[in-house]
């Protein structure tokens, strides 16, 4: 079934200059391999649809079931130069929660959020 990332993982973003790091944490260790396979750096960058202008590097942090996506050119030239309202990009980490993944149907009970909606 197709579900949004929000049901599999939680995220947080942080800033350094013009780079945002958006970390994705699997709610269950079981979810980690699906994230590894489906949430690639290329797809991650494509999902932001131009909001990330530079390279995206994905670091695997298996000991905490996480991936750290380091996104260059995501903060409008840097926090102080950024014309966006969210200068620090602290809300950037919520966009990727809408990324869709294909997961086994029998994970339904393990997913976070409502069990009534499939997306």
């Amino acid at each position, binding site marked *: 079934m197709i579900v949004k990332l929000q049901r599999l993982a939680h995220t947080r973003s942080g800033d350094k*200059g013009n780079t945002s790091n958006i970390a994705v944490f699997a709610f269950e260790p079981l979810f980690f391999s699906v994230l590894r396979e489906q949430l690639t750096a290329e797809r991650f960058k494509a999902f932001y649809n131009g909001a990330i202008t530079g390279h995206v590097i994905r670091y695997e*942090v298996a*000991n905490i079931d996480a991936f750290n996506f*380091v996104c260059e050119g995501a903060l409008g030239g840097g926090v102080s130069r950024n014309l966006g309202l969210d200068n620090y990009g*602290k809300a950037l980490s919520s966009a990727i929660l809408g990324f869709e993944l294909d997961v086994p149907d029998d994970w339904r009970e393990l997913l976070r959020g409502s069990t009534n909606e499939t997306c």
Partner: protein
Amino acid sequence: MTNRDLMKQNIRIGTGSGWWGDRISPAAELAKHGQLDYLCFETMAEATISAAQVRARRDTDFAGHDTYLEDRLRAVLPACLANGTKIISNQGWINPDAAAAKAIEILRQLGATGVKVAAVNGSLITQQVLGLTDKILENGQSTQTLADTLISAEVYLGAEPIVHALAQGADIVFTGRVADPSLFLAPLMHEFGWDPLDHNRLAQGSAVGHLLECGAQVTGGYFVDPGFKDVECPWDLGFPIAEVNDDGSCVISKLAGTGGCVTLQTVKEQMLYEVHDPAHYLTPDVTVDFTTAKLEMVGPDRVRVSGVSGKPRSPTLKVSMGCQEGFVGEDMFFYAGPGAMRRAEIAKTVLLERFKIVDLQSDDLRIDFLGLNAIHGLATPADAPEPYEVAVRVAARTRTRTQAEKVGREVDGMAVSGIAHTGKRVPFQDRVREVIGIWSSLVARDAVQATVTISES
């Protein structure tokens, strides 16, 4: 002396602030009830030093330290004095001596004599930086290209000068720019007598600092997401406490009875906060490898962190250079009800035409629809639903203040010369801010001399 002082089997460190604007009352609660050995305050962002330099030039009354210094000290000092809790703080900003003097003044008012207050100087290298640096890390150009716009340059110092201050008996230490984790690592190095080349202990201690440096971000702050990550009493988050052992392993917790939570999830999120390569997190003290960390839930709101490993520190120190880069003018106005988005869109067209008529000269211009795409920008899904209410928000980056002021003046024009049903607020400020651009470079360690000055109340 309490038993804890005699044994020193573990050290209890609390966070007093995670940034300049942080809440003050949770720090006071920690000072009173946290049984802390140390309370550490982090109050700076990347541009804090440069902004303080700009302000100091214009405002001769500005002391150059954290503007909330007195509020924070008055909130925690009585309990810290009573409990023997030492304070380590980067509230010195561009003038650690002034922060120390203010603390001495307050201590004397409180009748506390013989308290030793240290000021750590040496981070500011504005005059020397162009001779000590080569390339700008962000763009590869020579740092000489910043000569005409440079406001301030500061080196990120490590834990060592703070350790020196503690070794001289300091009860309170004020610094300028110090790497955030180093504020928390320093008391561990001092108390446990860690060797500065013991990479694993320093890395574990730096991890403690990294987890604590943003205050409530590890105790349920910046975390609540209803239905997915629920947190009790998110209006009353407790600030974190780390109980640290001699091997650097620790338990992260918070005061009983406070809101928030300490869970594997909150600790994981903070572990990677502002981290790039998790196996090589560079601090002035050590290179931290978070990929070996082990997290365990060992009780309610108690997470044990161990196994963080270290590699030798970098031979250079990071220097941050703040430069004048012009101005940003910004404002917004509002639409609601049926057709709100159509009115917002034509208002955007009107603004763009007006900017041509008044010849707005900008390096960057952005007009967003707040309620639709002002936060995620291009990442906003194409099928996002039309909002009932929308704000048209415009911002331009310009070389001169006069150009930046045109943004607010053209939004003023939308009041009686604009679109039907335009909501607008009365301007409450000049709607222009200065841009301090931040660039980074590296300096040799031996080019930087930190100094410690101790005074007594």
